[in-house]
Each structure stands twice: as C-alpha cells, then as structure tokens.
C-alpha cells in the first residue's frame, strides 16, 4: 500500500516538475507585503516596479503564461491612461478612469494571489491553515467556500445559456439566476455533508496527512526579496525620487 502511494505521489510530482510550489504561508506573507505596497504607494509609476518584480517571481515559480498576461494588462492600462483618456468624452473617463486606476493599483495583490493559487492545491492550503493552528470550525468553511466559487461560475453559465433563448425582464432574470443557484447549493451542501461525515469530518482528533508542507530556503528567499523590493519602492515613492 505504502509503495503504491509513493509511486502515485512520484508521478504527481513529475507532472508538476516545472511548477515549483510556494509554501502557502510564505505566499500569504508575500500577499500581505503586496497589500502594504498597494495601500502605501502614492504615485502609480513606482508600483510598476513592484509589478515587474512580481512578474519575475511568477516566472521563477513556473507560471510564464500568467506573467505575460499581467504584463500585457499593465501595458494596456498605461496605454489607455496615456493616449486615450486625454481625448475621450468625460463620462468614459469617469466610468473607466476608476477602473483602470484601481486595476493598476490592485495588480500586485492579484499577482500574488494568482501565484499562491497556481502553485498550490486546496489540500496544501488546508494543511497550512492547520499548521497555523486555526480552529477546525474556520478551516472547513473557508475550504468549502473557496472550492465552491468555480461551481457558482459553472451554474451561472448554464443559467445564462438557458436564458438566451427567452425574453425576460431584469427582475425575472435575477430570480432565474438566484433560485437555481440556491437550490443547487442546498443539494450540494447536503451531499457534501454526507460524504464528509462518512469520511470522519466530525472526528475531534487532530487530522494527519500523507503530504507534508515545509518552509524551504526558496520560500524564505522569495519572501525576503519581495520585502526588500517593497521597501525600496516605498522609499522611492515617499522621497519622490521618480
């Protein structure tokens, strides 16, 4: 039995050979640092440096696609702000000005979040939360909530496709979206609860796991680097060097 599990784990590791995994705790610290940068920065220009740094970090952790995507979004937003807004009518500026502005400021947080999600499985998050000694009555709802977002999206797509065929008022549309969503949520909750109870969710002892998470030197290096870049960025920002 042990051998089979070992082999399974090995093949899993081979699949993710290019994706190094960031420890969830280290990822959360990087996220916190990004949050601080987002809230403390004054000029948007300096934040760009941090975005570029986060892009490199994404590359290192083996997510080149998302790195390129974020760079394109950043360039697009800068281009829109520079070349389109001066000539656009004012209602466009009001509506999309806040959008591009907040979007650009939120980029570091989004990137840190994407990095955290792409390099980890839900199981590793749960392990990290348990290692941080959160109570089980918070760990389970958090895990279920995060895991349920894709299901909501899927549900919404089904409803949306079915709605295209009919002419409905806004109120009917809202009702048509919410009711199936709530109904399916109720059945899912029921089924999930039964499945979880049979697997011993109510067993009060500390849960064990085959996979273990450890903070490795690479996690420490990336946290240290992002802290350093954040401090440099904020210092440049406050002194107004750019």
């Amino acid at each position: 039995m042990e051998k089979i599990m070992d082999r399974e784990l090995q093949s899993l590791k081979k699949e993710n050979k290019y994706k190094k995994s960031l420890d969830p705790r280290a990822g959360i610290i990087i996220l916190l640092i990004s949050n601080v940068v987002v809230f403390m920065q004054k000029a948007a220009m300096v934040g760009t440096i941090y975005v570029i740094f986060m892009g490199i970090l994404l590359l290192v952790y083996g997510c080149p696609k998302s790195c390129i995507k974020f760079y394109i979004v950043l360039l697009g937003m800068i281009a829109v702000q520079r070349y389109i807004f001066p000539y656009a009518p004012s209602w466009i500026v009001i509506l999309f000005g806040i959008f591009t502005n907040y979007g650009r400021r939120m980029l570091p947080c989004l990137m840190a979040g994407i990095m955290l999600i792409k390099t980890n499985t839900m199981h590793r998050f749960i392990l990290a939360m348990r290692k941080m000694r959160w109570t089980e009555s918070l760990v389970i709802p958090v895990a279920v909530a995060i895991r349920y977002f894709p299901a909501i999206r899927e549900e919404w797509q089904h409803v949306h496709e079915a709605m295209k065929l009919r002419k409905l008022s806004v109120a009917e549309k809202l009702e048509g979206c919410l009711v199936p969503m709530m109904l399916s949520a109720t059945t899912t909750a029921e089924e999930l609860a039964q499945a979880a109870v049979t697997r011993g969710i109510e067993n009060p002892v500390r849960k064990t796991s085959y996979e273990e998470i450890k903070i490795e030197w690479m996690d420490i290096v990336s946290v240290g680097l992002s802290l350093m870049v954040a401090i440099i960025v904020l210092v440049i920002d406050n002194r107004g060097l750019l």
Partner: protein
Amino acid sequence: MKQEMKLTGKDLINIGIYTAILFVLNFVAMFAGIVPFLWTILPGTAALLTAIPFAMMNLKVKKPGAILIMGAIVALIYFVTGQFTVLLLITFVVACIASEAIRFAFHYKDTFVTMTVSFIAFSFGMIGSPLPIWCYGESFFTQIAENGMTKEYIDTLRGFATTENLILMLISPIIGGILGMLIAKVLFKKHFKNAGVV
C-alpha cells in the same frame, strides 16, 4: 455549551457554501460601485442582493457562531484580494458581532422579524466602504487625487459629500435589508417551500 448547540461538520459545510454565494453577490454590489452614486448607497445595494443567501444560512444553521464565521470568511477573502481598508474592517467586525448578538438575544429562533433585524445589523458592515467621503472630508479627496483618480470622478464624488447623502447612505441598509428580506420571503414561498428545501 450544550452539545446540540455546537457546530457540526454539516453546519460548517452549509456555512461555507452560502458564504461563497453571499460573497459573490456582495462583490457584484461592490463592482457596481464604479458608478459614483451606487457607491454612496453600497450598503443598501449589497443588502438587497445578499438577503437570500443570508436568510438561507440562518434557516439552515440555527446555532451560535454562524454569522461570525460567515463574516470572517468574507473579510478574509476581501483582505486577500486587497479590497479592505482599515475603516471597512472595523465597521464590518462590529456589524458581524452586533448581528450575532441580536440572533443570540432571540435565542436563535428565527422568525421573519428577528432575521430582518439581524440582517440589517449585518448590512451596516459595508458602510465603512463609502464612509471616507464624509469621514475624512477634503483630505480624502486630495489623497485619491494623488493616487491618480481623474478630476471628473472626484468632482462627482464631492457633489455627494452632503449631509443629505450621508443620511441616505446610513438608512440605505435598513431599506435595502427590509426589501431584500421581503423578496427572500416571496421567493422562499414561491420556490423553496415547494421543493422542500426550507
């Protein structure tokens, strides 16, 4: 605490799922806030949209701690996505505790009235988002101007910085909460009761 008042695994899963739906609807209201007027009445629009999952969660989990966990998860996800300001965090925590306290005062025997009252308390948590317009006044506008907000947007916002609008913002969660709960009641009667869900 008595054994039957403890949260079981099933309750936790219920809380998780309804919180996910509540969060999505809350986020929709937040996103609609790029229109300046909708941002000033954000607590009301959020209440209107999130009433159904909130009521559903209350009906399914009649135990202490449910609203606190719900609020904690919403705060956590917003915090991770970088949407939370300190002011919003404070109002949100206070509102969650108040809502839980109201439910506790009614011994978790949820009727339409008690649920509406605790939901209104819960909805007041979002007032922290538009509050800086009135709370910090001119320094807030100079700050977002420094952040690179366009002048037109700031002028529109400044137009809302009146006492009438502040009162409108403060009563919006009450109106939104009552309306949302009424809609929830109608929908529950129309769909969920027949399906045997509630």
